[in-house]
């Protein structure tokens, strides 16, 4: 079971809310599917994003994948430590391997995300 203190997207991003700030990352399942991470390209603090916008891209030896923002708002912090150390993402995707913090502009978008239990079903289906 993935952490149930946060909500998920069926595209494998997660968001953890504290007041009006959301921390965004990707799930262990996404990391496992990508494997052999090489490079992550993230936006800059100060950038504004709408839900569904490309948040960045993550490159593995085999392919490149887009990351999508599950929420709208302004980026207030980018996890610079992962740029040189993608091991943080592979080893601790729900903790040290977070990508960005967003000051969210619409909390109803968070409610539209799915719960850990629902995300579990998404993964089960993806695995079959």
């Amino acid at each position: 079971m993935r952490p149930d203190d946060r909500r998920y997207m069926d595209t494998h991003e997660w968001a953890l809310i504290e007041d009006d700030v959301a921390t965004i990352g990707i799930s262990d399942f996404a990391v496992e599917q990508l494997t052999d991470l090489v490079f992550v390209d993230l936006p800059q603090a100060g950038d504004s994003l709408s839900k569904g916008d490309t948040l960045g891209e993550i490159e593995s030896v085999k392919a490149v994948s887009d990351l999508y923002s599950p929420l709208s708002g302004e980026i207030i912090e980018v996890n610079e430590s992962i740029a040189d150390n993608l091991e943080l993402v592979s080893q601790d995707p729900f903790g040290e391997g977070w990508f960005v913090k967003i000051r969210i502009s619409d909390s109803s978008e968070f409610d539209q995300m799915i719960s850990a239990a629902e995300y579990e079903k998404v993964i089960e289906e993806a695995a079959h």
Partner: protein
Amino acid sequence: MKQTPLTALHKNSGARLVDFSGWEMPVLYSSIRAEHGATRSCAGLFDLCHMGRYEVVGEGATQALDAELSIEMGRIAVGRARYCLMLTESGTILDDLIVYRLAETRFLVVANAGNRDPVRERLIDRIDMSPETHFHDRSDDWSLIAIQGPESESLIQPLVADDLSSLRYYAQIQTHCNHHPALVARTGYTGEDGFEFYIPSDHAADFWEKLTRPPYEVLPVGLGARDTLRLEAGMHLYGHELDRSTTPYEADLARVVHLEKSSDFVGKQACSRNSQYPAQRSLVAFELEGKRVPRQHQPIRVDGSPVGQVTSGTASPTLGRSIGMGYLPPSVSQPGTTIEVDIRGHLVPGTIQKRPLYTRPQPATHSA
């Protein structure tokens, strides 16, 4: 999708399988980097049963293959193998293959998975016209398993009846392996020393399982690392560096087009013409700055103009850099030339390098 005699084993081991030219093949078992590293430092095990294996045998075999393939069969000694091309009438590349001369009038032709049918058709049509010559599709009967890496010989020797240390690079022997008849060749596609085993398919799963368990414990390697290994070693991959719009002269493969051979072969006339003029484009290898990874079809720019395209790219596990191959006009294809690759709108600077980018530290003493 078609399966190999080993597909069930791959699935049980948790490999990730993908569609490769209509075959359900493992792209990776655990990690491309780990599998790549094992092959460079020790040994790796490869399921290559998706490739076509065709036996051509009989009095007219040499003549038939001389008419279909780019090299002169008379220059392949019995017990040796050669890399060669099957060309189109217009002198472009239909497939790149390995030909083994098993006996005076007996050959084994190994084709890429994606080109099994066209190669098969061409050979059958030719052999139909050749008296006393037969074609046998051995792709199902004989499984093809490779072990590649510096420790291959010492690891595999206990299972092979004959002495492998005397087997030269691009040579093969008919021997016994794991108590069954086998053709063992010192060939491969990784830039390392290694062997390819043609064994009866009934015994393929047993052989594979034996090698993955103690005391051998050879790491299975998927197509992902097979690609990064061959790319570092500067080897062509059909569908990337080679296709039906590419000539051997563009692909730096003139050495395997034997225009001087006396017999005619498909594509010879066109190649004779092409060989007299400078090629329109040249295959290059390059390294890029930064961590973005170049991918097939991305534009290569020189002096600000898009003048070429990436054919293959990866994050090189051995070199720790982004690398690739591609085609550029010959005037700007010299090593040292500064390039930019347009990676989804990001212009990433790099330099053309001598191909191959990786050469194994100590070439095998068995090299021809």
